[in-house]
């Protein structure tokens, strides 16, 4: 198991963690979830048949782990809001703090990061896989079990929506003009 873990870690860990973070937008949760991804991967590794590439298979597992977590969060928040005695502030909190890496970036990046959250889950997955992870259309389609045309359409709509929302954001003119980070 150690050997497999070492190889997968060296080849994919950075990318998987990035993907999880940008999906769940919380570093601590991404750190927990990446463990879950390795658990599922290592348990299923022997049965991996190579029908898809190892890379897209790993992303596909990470995607399921992230979606499961997001749904659980959604359910939990609803329950706390409706019927529970204890209200947990952390569960009801809308936004996680920006990671240090992002705090160091210009406002335009922070705005884009915030706007990403307004996209649908499908759109977020496509944007993260296509642009942040640099997967091809074909690889993205494999990870999501979609057709390539659905990936393209979702990507197009997502960019269009982001553009609409970002155009409504004030105060980005100067920094975009100078073109620096």
């Amino acid at each position, binding site marked *: 198991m150690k050997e497999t873990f070492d190889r997968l870690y060296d080849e994919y860990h950075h990318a998987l963690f*990035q993907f999880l973070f940008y999906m769940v937008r919380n570093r601590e949760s991404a750190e927990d979830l990446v463990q879950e991804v390795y658990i599922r991967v290592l348990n299923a590794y022997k049965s991996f048949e190579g029908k898809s590439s190892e890379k897209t298979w790993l992303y596909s597992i990470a995607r399921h782990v992230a979606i499961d977590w997001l749904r659980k969060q959604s359910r939990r928040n609803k329950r706390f809001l409706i019927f529970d005695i204890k209200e947990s502030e952390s569960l009801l909190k809308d936004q996680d703090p920006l990671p240090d890496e992002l705090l160091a970036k210009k406002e335009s990046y922070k705005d884009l990061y915030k706007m990403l959250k307004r996209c649908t889950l499908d759109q977020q997955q496509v944007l993260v896989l296509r642009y942040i992870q640099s997967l091809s259309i074909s690889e993205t389609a494999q990870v999501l079990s979609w057709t390539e045309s659905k990936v393209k359409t979702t990507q197009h709509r997502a*960019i269009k929506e982001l553009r609409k929302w970002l155009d409504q954001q004030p105060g980005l003119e100067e920094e975009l003009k100078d073109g620096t980070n």
Partner: protein
Amino acid sequence: MEPIKWNDEKIEQHLKSLPPIKDRQSKQELYLKVEAKVEYKNNKGKRLPTWSLPALATACALVIFGVFAPELVKNGGTKEQNKVVQHEAKKESNEMNTTMTTDGEVSLKFDNKTAPVSYHGPIQESSLQSTETERDWVTVGYLDEQAQLAIPVSFITKPNQYLDKVNEQLQKFKPASAGLMESPLQRAKITEEEETVIIDWPAGSIYEAEEPLLKNLIALTFSNENQKYKVEFRTEGKTGYEFPNYGLVKGWNLEVPGAPHFRYDAPTTDTFIVSLFSAGQEADDMPADLDDALEVMDEEQERGLKPLLPKNLELEVKITGKHSVEITFPDSFKLQPDNQEHQMMIDAILLTAKSYDYDTVKFNNTGLEAIGPYQLNKPIEGIKGQNVYHYQ
């Protein structure tokens, strides 16, 4: 100062330049955590002593033989509806793999590996009334072995109060025999006060892994036919129950939403039909209507849920009444008699329709007069229960 206009290129460049976020766990630290969790999960999974595995396999074989031997003698080989259906392992036509033939027809191929040995279908109300002995039914939710699905299992019972039937089956049914885990409800004292179900657990009864699907499991048990709408929790008589993650909870309102249905193969030989609600999806995430639900039923889902509708099958849905619907198959697809996968497809459609409050379904253009227990030339109604388990 003119406002800056974002364009597609700028957005794409910005997305590509979002900063990499570092995992603060070291490789070694991460490995140790993963290793510990893998071992924990593996040990947790070893619920049965090793000697029991051959015994379980023998028991399964006896159960299958027990079902078919008398049936073959009594009915000359005709299978009774909803009993365990024997997989014709040698037949080539047993895989849910869809292909589009050259003339555009949708066809199904069946894979021996994926075909079930023990399939638990729904029942029709009429079959409960057709015998001399009065019969009733009840549904109880169980978890699959990975605690990833809440699976409703129905039982034929003697007529009784709903909660009495639930309590009886919680004592009687051994979920491991069908590849399922024990229900957290088995550890509870379940009573009723003015239409509210009271679930009383000793403290510490619910494992963390059981928590995420607990509400679904309880809803499937008490509200699968809108029998009850509310559950309240107690801990040895005191109000509320302290869950590992939810904290102290007084109770929940119950609802089983309309949802598309899929196939789940347990690690044993058992096959069930479950909805996306069983996989933990919220009512808000479900397709809005039956038409939309049927659209997604040809797609593989998370948590091992497999489609029962072939790809490219376009069903026409016509609402004919408040609770009735007509579903028309395309000319390119014909149901085959004695095809278990096709009967499962009909079951899944009926269960999905029922979940959207359509109790009566008329199928058109199926190419068949009947399949399994269903007469296809007239409306099918009164589907009750789901994944009916027959005791031997």
